[in-house]
């Protein structure tokens, strides 16, 4: 299935296809490709078919719930959905079946969107490659011995290989934008508070945000419209009026737009030549179309975001993951003599290596003797990083940056060296620390044929304008749909 969501919607409207046929197509593709790619952890085929039949009946009677009624979707496996497991790709939650839907899931269902299943990820969203999934890594469809990125790698692979026309992920430090870049799809991190986190299994509560994966900007905008909005069940969700990201999507203009080029991001050592030429080429296109490229200064975001992020995210994770104690749900170690032993052994046997590393790091940073030196210092650095964005966005309408220093890299390359793995997140972490919105857009290919994305970043609640700019840039880049991974032909 290589059709965009907007094409699928017009096929559903004209009667050229049905939701049942779409679910069958997606499920067949998952059956065919997933044994190799391992992008999908569970498929709720029967429930999806029932939902699809109901959707087709609504269409027939002229009463669809929304334009997207009947379109199938896959959800990252940290977004709760009743009717199947939500595992966070962890042994701890291997048999966990949530008794409620996440707000994002409920909103999709209310619009008639058909939840088909759940996608692979790094355990509890901690990682940049999906290699930390307890159920085996996902593979990059463009080169299956390479990582797809992470932590929402399964969602990126699923969309890139046509297992579903769109998917949801979550982005705590780049976990939507980086796998989107590595797999050649569009991925968006909304502003903190734009999408409810109710039912998103918490990793780092001041950074986490649910967002869309799609094969083009218009489809991402359609999905944003469905999931955004204030929610009384998430006290950190923003009480701001919802914006229609679709109606005026094509009304943006590149001419006269000011695009910020953060000088320090481009000076980072070790940026791959292909990433550099694709990013510079994108700036050339923007310049040619009449945009003004403005050099902006973001020294703290480049130099200190890895250090500040790994303290703050780990601290929040150590606190959030305290709930996995084997008492109420999740994995419990057998035959413990007392309750503390049950806690300590359940967690030791249930968590994988990266989760343990971050829980340890976070607990260290929050310990009484190191709290000021590590946690408070990182929070102050966060202030400086946010200030970098505020200053830069006074001089430009959007910021353009690489997604990662390199395209997708071979599996196993960084798993033995946590610091090297963390440093590869240098271009995505700061946006979450600031709380602002951004997206990753396919912009070119490496000489070896791997996709390369660029990021467009904007301020709080700037999604509508950002998507307009991205749509214009996408049409000038001419990349979307120009090449598909070889698996697509299968």
């Amino acid at each position: 299935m290589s059709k965009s969501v907007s094409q699928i919607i017009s096929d559903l409207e004209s009667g050229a296809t049905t939701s049942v046929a779409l679910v069958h197509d997606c499920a067949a593709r998952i059956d065919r490709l997933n044994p190799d790619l391992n992008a999908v952890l569970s498929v709720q085929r029967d429930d999806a078919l029932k939902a699809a039949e109901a959707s087709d009946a609504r269409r027939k009677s002229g009463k669809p719930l929304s334009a997207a009624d009947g379109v199938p979707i896959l959800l990252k496996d940290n977004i709760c959905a009743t009717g199947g497991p939500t595992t966070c790709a962890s042994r701890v939650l291997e048999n966990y079946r949530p008794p409620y839907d996440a707000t994002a899931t409920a909103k999709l269902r209310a619009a008639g969107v058909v939840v088909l299943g759940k996608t692979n990820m790094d355990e509890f969203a901690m990682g940049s490659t999906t290699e930390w999934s307890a159920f085996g890594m996902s593979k990059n469809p463009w080169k299956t011995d390479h990582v797809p990125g992470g932590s929402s790698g399964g969602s990126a692979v699923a969309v890139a290989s046509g297992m579903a026309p769109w998917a949801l992920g979550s982005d705590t430090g780049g976990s939507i934008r980086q796998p989107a870049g590595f797999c050649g799809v569009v991925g968006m991190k909304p502003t903190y508070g734009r999408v409810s986190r109710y039912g998103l299994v918490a990793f780092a509560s001041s950074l986490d945000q649910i967002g869309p994966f799609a094969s083009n900007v218009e489809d991402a905008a359609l999905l944003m419209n469905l999931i955004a909005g204030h929610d009384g069940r998430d006290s950190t969700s923003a009480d701001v009026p919802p914006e229609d990201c679709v109606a005026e999507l094509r009304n943006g203009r590149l001419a006269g737009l000011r695009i910020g080029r953060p000088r320090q991001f481009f000076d980072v050592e070790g940026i791959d030549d292909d990433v550099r030429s694709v990013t510079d080429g994108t700036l050339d296109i923007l310049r040619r179309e009449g945009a003004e490229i403005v050099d902006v200064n973001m020294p703290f975001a480049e130099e200190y975001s890895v250090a500040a992020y790994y303290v703050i995210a780990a601290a929040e994770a150590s606190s959030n993951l305290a709930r996995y104690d084997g008492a109420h749900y999740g994995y419990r170690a057998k035959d413990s003599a007392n309750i503390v032993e049950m806690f300590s052994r359940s967690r030791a046997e249930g968590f994988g290596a990266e989760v343990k590393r971050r829980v340890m790091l976070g607990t260290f940073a929050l310990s009484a003797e190191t709290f000021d030196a590590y946690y408070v210092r990182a929070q102050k650095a966060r202030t400086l990083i946010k200030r970098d964005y505020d200053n830069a966005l006074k001089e430009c309408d959007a910021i353009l940056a690489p997604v990662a220093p390199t395209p997708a890299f071979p599996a196993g390359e960084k798993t033995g060296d946590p610091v090297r793995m963390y440093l590869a997140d240098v271009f995505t972490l700061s946006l979450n620390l600031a709380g602002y919105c951004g997206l990753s857009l396919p912009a070119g290919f490496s000489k070896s044929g791997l996709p390369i994305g660029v990021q467009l970043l904007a301020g709080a609640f700037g999604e509508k304008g950002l998507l307009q700019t991205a749509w214009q840039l996408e049409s000038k880049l001419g990349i979307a749909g120009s090449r598909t991974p070889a698996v697509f032909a299968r």
Partner: protein
Amino acid sequence: MSLPKVDHVGEIGEERVRHVALLSRLELTDDEVGRFARELTAVIHHINKLEELDLTGVEPTSHPMPLTNVFRQDVVVPSLPNEAALSNAPEQRDGCFKVPQII
């Protein structure tokens, strides 16, 4: 164990790893203690970059959006039924979660 406040940690030794593991409620093997000591030392070595910053007068940011005291109407809605709340329990008895003896 209570340790004095410190402004800098250069190395995370095995003793500190065992202390942090206890606070984290993580039972570690001796191998893991050695490995975490090495790995966390490498990570802390990078994080210590933050010491270069002049943070005088800089307020900490704990949350990206300026929200305080978010209230909602106190409306009674049905809660999760007992059966659903217990549906994922590793062990249960008489409508309660069952755990090893606490006291």
